[in-house]
């Protein structure tokens, strides 16, 4: 893990990159990183995030600044701007059931080609997907999902990059921290090694590439 500034971290993200962003309706989202992505105008992004949050909050800021070209998400109903951009064909949106979304990312981070899920069998979600029967039950083959970058937000990060999360701000963060080539983390608190007990580390340090410094 390397501790770097916000500016340096976001400068590494090329225009048009695929980026996973942790958070659920903007809760547990690395807001400082997103503000910097907007400031550096990193556009054409392939965004993978549970939802589109709301305008002005979380990944909602990326839609405010029209930086998203493609979105993979489970729900965008609470962001009218993202909906408008989808209906105007300014962004391509792939809507995925939430349990499938997280399992595809988990598969991507765990070296699996995909998962078999009963969710979506017999619905629009099944279109174009392989249906596989196991012990007489139908499942959909849902393929693994990875990104070039994961932007993750933690409650605690120690000097090595071990991470712990708070309450419902954990959500997709630890799963995404497994599934990207480069993992960039902001933390509410950067603490000395040992403050997070081994049993309380959720994301082990070797998964973290960059920790954003304070200030």
């Amino acid at each position, binding site marked *: 893990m390397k501790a770097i500034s916000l500016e340096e971290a976001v400068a590494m993200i090329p225009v048009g990159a695929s980026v996973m962003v942790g958070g659920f309706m903007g809760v547990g989202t690395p807001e400082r990183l997103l503000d910097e992505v907007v400031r550096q105008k990193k556009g054409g992004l392939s965004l993978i995030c549970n939802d589109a949050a709301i305008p002005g909050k979380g990944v909602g800021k990326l839609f405010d600044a029209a930086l998203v070209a493609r979105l993979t998400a489970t729900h965008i109903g609470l962001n009218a701007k993202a909906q408008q951009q989808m209906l105007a064909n300014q962004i391509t949106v792939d809507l995925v059931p939430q*349990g499938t979304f*997280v399992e595809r990312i988990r598969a991507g981070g765990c070296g699996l080609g995909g998962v078999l899920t009963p969710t979506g069998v017999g619905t629009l979600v099944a279109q174009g997907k392989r249906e596989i029967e196991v012990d007489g039950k139908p499942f959909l083959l849902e393929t693994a999902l990875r990104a070039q970058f994961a932007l993750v937000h933690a409650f605690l990060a120690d000097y090595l990059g071990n991470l712990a999360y708070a309450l419902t701000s954990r*959500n997709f963060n630890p799963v995404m921290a497994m599934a990207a080539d480069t993992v960039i983390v902001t933390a509410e608190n950067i603490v000395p090694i040992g403050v997070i007990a081994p049993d309380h580390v959720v994301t082990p340090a070797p998964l973290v590439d960059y920790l954003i410094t304070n200030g």
Partner: protein
Amino acid sequence: MDPQIIIARRVAKELRSGDLVNLGIGIPTLVANYVPTDLKVFFQSENGLIGTGPIPEQGLAHPTLTDAGGRPISALPGASTFDSAMSFGLIRGGHVDVTVLGGLQVDAHGHLANWMIPGKMVPGMGGAMDLVSGAKRVIVAMQHAAKGKSKIVAKCSLPLTSARPVNLVVTDMAVIGFADGTATLLETAPGVTIGEVMAATEADLLVGDHVPEMMI
């Protein structure tokens, strides 16, 4: 009584001590208000919490403790938190005893449509498809009709949420079950006759010899 409160009170009667329950947005959220305090029900919020508590007092909300709509909530003693993979493992894996969801349409065989209106409303399915596929019991809590049109239809014209039928529908007029794969009128709301329910319902309903009034 307000139609939504009739529905919420009746659904609350379906919950048992020890149940792990997931409530959807809208009318289902109201169900928690009518669960007797001596009933130990675990409420899950799919953004990563079991043991959701009421909205905190003014000034006590914390930005990392929210419901699936991003609104501040509290946590009860004994609550637990987890990531989204665990949360949907609980849902899809059959560990959630009851889910209560809103609906746009339910058809004569219990198929639910509740996630999109093509060309009009495409918000995304969120967790709805996983909940209907995986929860042990699926209860739909919705108004019987919208703009004068029955929401209990012969066949869903809107895209289905799951191929799996729901177990129970509770509306402001009736309780309808699907035990044998066919819509069956189980109860009528206070002051509502069987004839009124039939007239307000597009789907054919089986009617038993004895249809009691809803206990709310």
